[in-house]
């Protein structure tokens, strides 16, 4: 019988062959999975494993209504290329790429076609945390950079030689407000490296460049167009969020800014950074040879937690009104500085706060050095002699102690005031030919009357009330480097000082301190902490934190406060010093109450012989009007402070009544419909017949 091919020998041979092949395969598998396993896994992890950071979106900053977005995060793409991957075919697309990136073609060509970088002789500063691999999705830690922060004003220096008390005081005031001592903005370090280099130089000492940034921030739709070009050398996009301030310089000093690292550096951005910044997410996985993520090999994923949004008490409409008035002041008077504050006196929440000059947080890093002072919140960092506004302290103290009533009279005709056995002359802005009541002392702003009130109260109690009103101490306002002002302790007072302090000389206060002192009277005698943050909400719009009004102290009794309201109402009466501040609409008097202030500035004067002194100037004043309305039911407090507007005033001298009071009036008139301010002595509420929330603004 013929067996053909299938003889025993051949079958066995085939079988042995097959088994041998499988045995060889098995042996190879054992080598790979057992013997060389560690080395191979290390290689795989090095080349395929990746950790992708999912950056968290920084929370928004909203105004009081929650509809105006004052700060937000915009998604942007960082465009990077791998010059080593560029082909001839890609070069033809460079012109389109340059057009999309809005960059010069030569620069794009240079970046994309420079494949090697010469290794320098001296060791170059290495990128801290830079990874050696050519991956574009690996995170690169921030480069170290010097961080500059906005400094607080320098502390008050000690008295120099050959200086009188007044000159020393003037020097202290000038130094504390010195713009030249402001440090630069906190720009942060460069968030990521601009280049990633292969570690290994070749024989000629050149390092290949595997990753280089073409443009830092590009919109998503622009990147889609770039991707559509099909350039092989284009690296995978790195998405990040860029901080944007849609309203530009609106409330810039309050909102602050976030630096290039996305960290809050000033204002609410800095103060609420913990809530705003969120938490980055990340995932571990693998990528293939084309750097694409292999989704099925994800081993770990932590979802990102976006930042919370912060809602301020600042009303965008009120802030806008305030800033328009500041622009008007700037155009009309060209002052050195100006500040306006609007708040609810019964809660301490600020509705608007603006300064001139200001800055645009979108361009904070491009401010030249000589303009860094624009970033200071001068409402809290700069102090000035408040002038006649400070008389409210003496009057309130005397009324509260029961030493006087509104009708008690004082002789304000004498030129000298006697105190502690000596007589001190006090200038009076107006001539009085009859004794003045306490009401008239306030309404006519009598310096001698204020001094007599303070002397009646006594040094100890006067100092106590001044501190109670918030002078000489910080109010705890954390946005902008608050200054406590200058209020020397009683032990350092010269008897002459005590005749001047009550009228607002030899003492300095910030605009916010004066505002809060007046608001104390408006709020029934309660000093509230000024605040601008009202709520913190999570990304789902649930309230996480709600800030309530914070009472610091009951400074005077409600009865005294009410009496003071009525006395201050006299200032805006036809017989008062600030009748231009009165608000009358449709025959309704809105009972404006307030106080004007006109204080001489101390100007640096170089005398003969080169000696420098700070002397009071008759041509440079800080003028103010601080008030509230309606006096019978205060609903809003407004402070207007203007520094050095004299040059453009009638007669070359600025007065609070002429410059600041009309600003108060204009702001007040615009605020009435916006804040629905109830006219005095009316139980009816003024409402439009068909108002809705949007229309009210």
């Amino acid at each position, binding site marked *: 019988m013929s067996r053909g091919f299938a003889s025993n020998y051949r079958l066995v041979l085939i079988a042995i062959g097959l088994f041998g092949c499988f045995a060889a395969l098995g042996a190879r598998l054992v080598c790979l999975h057992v013997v060389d396993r560690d080395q191979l896994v290390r290689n795989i992890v090095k080349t395929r494993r990746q950790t992708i950071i999912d950056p968290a979106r920084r929370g928004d900053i909203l105004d009081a209504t929650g509809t105006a977005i004052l700060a937000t995060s915009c998604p942007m793409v960082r465009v990077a290329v791998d010059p080593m991957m560029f082909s001839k075919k890609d070069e033809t697309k460079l012109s389109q790429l340059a057009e999309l990136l809005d960059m010069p073609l030569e620069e794009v060509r240079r970046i994309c076609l420079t494949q090697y970088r010469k290794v320098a002789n001296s060791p170059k500063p290495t990128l801290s945390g830079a990874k050696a691999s050519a991956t574009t999705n690996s995170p690169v830690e921030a480069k170290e950079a010097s961080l500059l922060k906005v400094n607080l004003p320098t502390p008050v220096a000690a008295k120099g030689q050959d200086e009188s008390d007044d000159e020393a005081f003037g020097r202290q005031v000038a130094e504390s407000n010195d713009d030249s001592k402001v440090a630069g903005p906190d720009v942060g370090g460069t968030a990521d490296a601009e280049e990633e280099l292969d570690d290994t130089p070749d024989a000629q000492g050149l390092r290949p460049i595997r990753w280089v940034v073409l443009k830092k921030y590009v919109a998503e739709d622009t990147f889609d167009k770039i991707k559509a070009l099909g350039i092989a050398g284009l690296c995978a996009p790195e998405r990040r969020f860029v901080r944007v301030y849609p309203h530009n310089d609106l409330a810039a000093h309050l909102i602050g800014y976030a630096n290039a690292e996305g960290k809050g550096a000033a204002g609410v951005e800095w103060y609420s950074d913990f809530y705003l910044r969120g938490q980055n997410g990340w995932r571990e996985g693998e990528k293939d040879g084309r750097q694409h*993520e292999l*989704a099925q090999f994800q081993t770990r994923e932590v979802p990102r937690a976006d930042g919370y949004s912060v809602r301020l008490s600042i009303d965008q409409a009120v802030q806008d009104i305030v800033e328009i008035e500041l622009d008007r002041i700037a155009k009309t008077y060209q002052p050195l500085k100006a500040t306006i504050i609007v708040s609810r006196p019964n809660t301490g929440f600020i509705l608007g706060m603006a300064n001139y000059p200001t800055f645009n947080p979108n361009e904070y890093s491009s401010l030249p050095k000589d303009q860094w002072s624009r970033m200071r919140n001068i409402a809290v960092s700069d102090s000035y002699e408040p002038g006649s506004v400070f008389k409210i302290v003496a009057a309130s103290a005397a009324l509260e102690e029961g030493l006087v009533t509104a009708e008690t009279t004082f002789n304000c005709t004498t030129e000298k005031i006697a105190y502690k056995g000596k007589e001190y002359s006090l200038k009076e802005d107006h001539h009085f030919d009859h004794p003045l009541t306490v009401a008239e002392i306030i309404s006519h702003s009598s310096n001698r009357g204020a001094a007599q009130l303070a002397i009646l109260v006594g040094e100890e109690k006067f100092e106590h009330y001044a501190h109670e009103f918030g002078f000489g101490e910080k109010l705890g306002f954390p946005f902008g480097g608050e200054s406590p002002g200058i209020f020397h302790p009683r032990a350092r007072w010269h008897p002459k000082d005590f005749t001047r302090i009550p009228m607002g000389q030899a003492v300095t206060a910030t605009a916010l301190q004066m505002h809060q002192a007046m608001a104390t009277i408006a709020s029934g005698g309660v000093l509230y902490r000024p605040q601008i943050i009202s709520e913190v909400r999570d990304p789902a719009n649930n309230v996480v934190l709600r800030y309530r009004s914070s009472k610091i102290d009951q400074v005077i009794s409600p009865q005294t406060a009410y009496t003071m309201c009525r006395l201050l109402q006299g200032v805006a009466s036809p017989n008062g010093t600030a009748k231009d501040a009165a608000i009358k609409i449709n025959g309704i008097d809105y009972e404006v109450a307030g106080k004007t202030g006109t204080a001489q500035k101390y100007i640096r004067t170089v005398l003969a012989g080169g000696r420098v002194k700070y002397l009071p100037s008759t041509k440079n004043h800080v003028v103010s009007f601080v008030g509230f309305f309606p006096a019978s039911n205060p609903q809003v407090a407004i402070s207007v402070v203007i520094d050095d507007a004299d040059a453009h005033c009638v007669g070359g001298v600025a007065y609070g009544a002429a410059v600041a009071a009309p600003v108060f009036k204009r702001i007040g008139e615009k605020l009435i*419909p916006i804040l629905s301010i109830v006219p005095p002595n009316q139980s009816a509420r003024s409402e*439009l017949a068909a108002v809705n929330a949007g229309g009210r603004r």
Partner: protein
Amino acid sequence: MKPSTTLAFTHPALLGLLVTIGFGGTLGLGTVWLRHRISVVADTNAALEKETNRVQRQIEDTRALVEAESTNEVLRSRNERMQLGLTELTQQQIQPVLEIENPYLMLAEHNRRRATEREAAASGVTIRLQTPSAMPAPEIPAGETSGSVTTPTASSISLTSLRPDRVRVALGQ
């Protein structure tokens, strides 16, 4: 002839090997296919997530753009450029009204009052104040009720009405 023992062993071994190859291969292929499906699903999920994130980013981008275009500065410049003539609301334009609990009730009350006045006007009730001596006997149209009141003073009031509950008072000589 007695069959070879080698063959008796080889054939089943070969058969077994083929079956093992077949079975193992099927399992392997099945595993590969499953892994492929897993990767496809994972890729689809990743693509969906990417798309969701992309849309979310687009929303945020648009929101920022809309906000930038809605600032007061931009709106004012548009108002000027397009000559819309929009101005700020001033308090002079606002008339104070009583506190309204429910505007519908207020309107209903207003309409009721108007209707009452119209009915009163249509009912023809007149009250005339006249001196008694000069007062002629009133003419009473048919179907109307009448009455008179004589006061101690030199006046009297006469009432005529189709509907006594709806009366309009007119004072005249």
